[in-house]
């Protein structure tokens, strides 16, 4: 397993400039000769350009693509801090019940729009609810949206794109046309339509679940589109590669080749797309809730809080700034981490 990845890693690194086949043809005459005398020390002594294209030399002292990427990622301090921040926000979301000093819906009529104090660190809103608690509970929605839609998109988009690219021809054209059509409806419009439909049709679901489920469903329905495109493109490219041909010549079935050979090799781009998708979806949920078409009060999400804070912006601007900042830092962390991941995977792109 590791071996395939390593090999494909090299294939990927060269594939934009030169197809894998080139490596073989280039090195075919000279390589055997070099093979006889070359040691790792020699390889180190030869300046990099000279040995480019002689792939076994590089492999002699190269670690796997995944390991390399991980090492590069570790060295990127900003990305590392972002990852820690994301971890902290996730923990806050998981333990919201224990961390939040109050419930997200308990109203206190004696304490309406109280300024920040020791009892209420961020004050209370226009119904006397503790803003910090609502903020903490709001992180649950954002994280749930991010993770859930990522998983659904990953599962569906990858399979869809892989099948489309693998089959090719007419089926591919048909499947991609569907993606085109869905893609040409502006995202937010599509989201709203699906959410509205879901809410109207599911009347006998527990309200707490229903509040989030519509948004989750809507975001999952469109989230896989970009992934399907990327995976399809990668599969189309990978189909031409020699390792696929050799697997086929050894009698591997289509499904085996697709899922055991190609997919592990194109995992890099997939992960990069997913890390871009998560913040985009979190942002969309907030947008939806902010314009009043997503989560509805009394449930709390950062978009809902911003929407409520908007009413009192003139006198109590902190009510809208606080959820805005929470969302901003989370977005920032995801984006920086995503950039770091991309750079780690494809150092040329930097």
């Amino acid at each position, binding site marked *: 397993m590791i071996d395939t990845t390593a090999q494909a890693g090299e294939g990927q690194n060269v594939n934009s400039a030169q197809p894998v086949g080139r490596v073989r043809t280039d090195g075919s005459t000279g390589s055997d000769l070099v093979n006889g005398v070359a040691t790792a020390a020699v390889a180190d002594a030869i300046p990099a350009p000279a040995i480019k294209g002689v792939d076994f030399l590089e492999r002699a002292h190269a670690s796997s693509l995944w390991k390399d990427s991980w090492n590069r990622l570790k060295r990127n301090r900003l990305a590392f801090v972002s990852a820690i921040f994301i971890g902290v926000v996730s923990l806050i979301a998981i333990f919201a019940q224990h961390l939040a000093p109050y419930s997200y819906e308990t109203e206190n009529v004696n304490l309406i729009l109280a300024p920040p104090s020791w009892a209420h660190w961020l004050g209370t809103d226009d119904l006397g609810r503790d803003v910090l608690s609502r903020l903490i509970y709001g992180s649950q929605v954002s994280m749930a949206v991010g993770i859930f839609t990522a998983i659904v998109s990953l599962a569906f988009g990858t399979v869809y794109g892989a099948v489309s690219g693998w089959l090719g021809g007419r089926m591919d054209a048909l499947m991609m046309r569907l993606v*085109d*059509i869905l893609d*040409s*409806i*502006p*995202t*937010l*419009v599509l989201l*709203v*339509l*699906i959410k*509205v*439909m879901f809410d*109207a*049709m599911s*009347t006998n679901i527990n309200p707490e679940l229903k509040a989030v489920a519509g948004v989750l469903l809507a975001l999952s329905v469109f989230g896989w589109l970009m992934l399907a495109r990327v995976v399809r493109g990668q599969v189309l490219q990978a189909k031409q590669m020699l390792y696929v041909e050799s697997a086929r010549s050894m009698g591997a079935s289509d499904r085996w080749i697709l899922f055991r050979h190609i997919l592990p090799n194109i995992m890099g781009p997939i992960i990069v797309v997913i890390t871009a998708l998560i*913040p985009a979806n979190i*942002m*969309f949920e*907030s*947008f939806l809730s*902010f*314009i*009043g*078409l997503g989560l509805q009060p009394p449930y709390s999400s950062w*978009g809902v809080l*911003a929407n409520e*804070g*908007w009413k009192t*912006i*003139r006198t109590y*601007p902190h009510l*809208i*700034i606080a959820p*805005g*900042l929470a*969302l*901003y830092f989370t*977005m*920032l962390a*995801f*984006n*920086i981490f995503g*950039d770091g991941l991309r750079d780690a995977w494809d150092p040329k*792109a930097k």
Partner: protein
Amino acid sequence: MSENRQWIRQLNVILPIGALVAILLTAVWSFAGYSIPNSVIVGDIVLVAVFFAFHAATHGLTNYVLKRLLQTLFVVWAIATLTFFLLRTIPGGPFDQDKALPPEVKAAIEAKYDLNSPLYKQYIQYIEGVATGHLGYSYKYVGREVTDIVASSAPASLQLGLFAMILAFIVGIPAGVYAAANHNNWKDNITMVAATSFISVPSFLVAPILITIFCFGLNWLPVAQWDGTSFYIMPVIVLGLQPAAVIARLTRSSVLEVIRSDFVRTAKAKGLKQRTILFKHVLKNSLIPVLSYAGPVTAGVLSGSFVVEDIFNIPGMAKHFILSVTNRDYPLVLGVTLIYATLLILANLVVDILYTYFDPKIKLA
């Protein structure tokens, strides 16, 4: 023959520049707070169409463009069908209210809007309407046609979108070039940190900050509405910020890639001036990937306009869309969805054609 070629080549430069200048002038004129006569808008569109037709004809793209236009029709039909059935299968009609209407009244209303005939008949009628430019009557605004409502709200949305996109490009591209020219020093770092920051910032954080400073604090700009230059400034900044940041990052990486290419090394070896290399050789080539982002920018601006129109209470299409969804005003929802989708598809078509203009190596089929 060669004289003929020359003539074509010249027109191929003059036409797009003419169209671009015309659009920019119109935008500036509109931004200054004047209302634009319809004839000018039609003139702009004709200029662009003439350029595209000329480019397509002289580059053997006519078939491709016609094919794409046909596809556009097909996609619009598909979207119309999809949304029609999506909305009609929702249980609960637009006239279900907390207080039940008397049955006779309800029957009369449903008869008026033809909600009782079989679904396929409604569908055929709807598609016929779409084909002839009638999108039916709004449920909520009694007696008003959807086309009419869209026509009256479209200008504000189009203005907002156009201004934001122009802002995104005229800020984003120079910022990206600046960062690339100072690759890996603090100027580059600061620009990129700012860009990442602006990509991550939600518009409902930027807007309150700007409003608090410029409206409540300094009292320079109005808080909401859409009536003239001072009203345009804040919404356009809020909407254009994120695409500008994305464009800056794209430009930077694209410029960096081009700088490393062989023809730039040749230019340096010839001893050309830094400035000449940057503007004549690097920029021209590195703007192609940036241009291809114009399609996604349109989509992003469309989505972003929902929040911005909501925040600044701008009477545009997004505002109507939000209201029509909460009101279950199906004809209006359908109408606005169709308009948005068509805009997006056309924007993508325009980008694809422009692509072949800037990069003749690209062959569309």
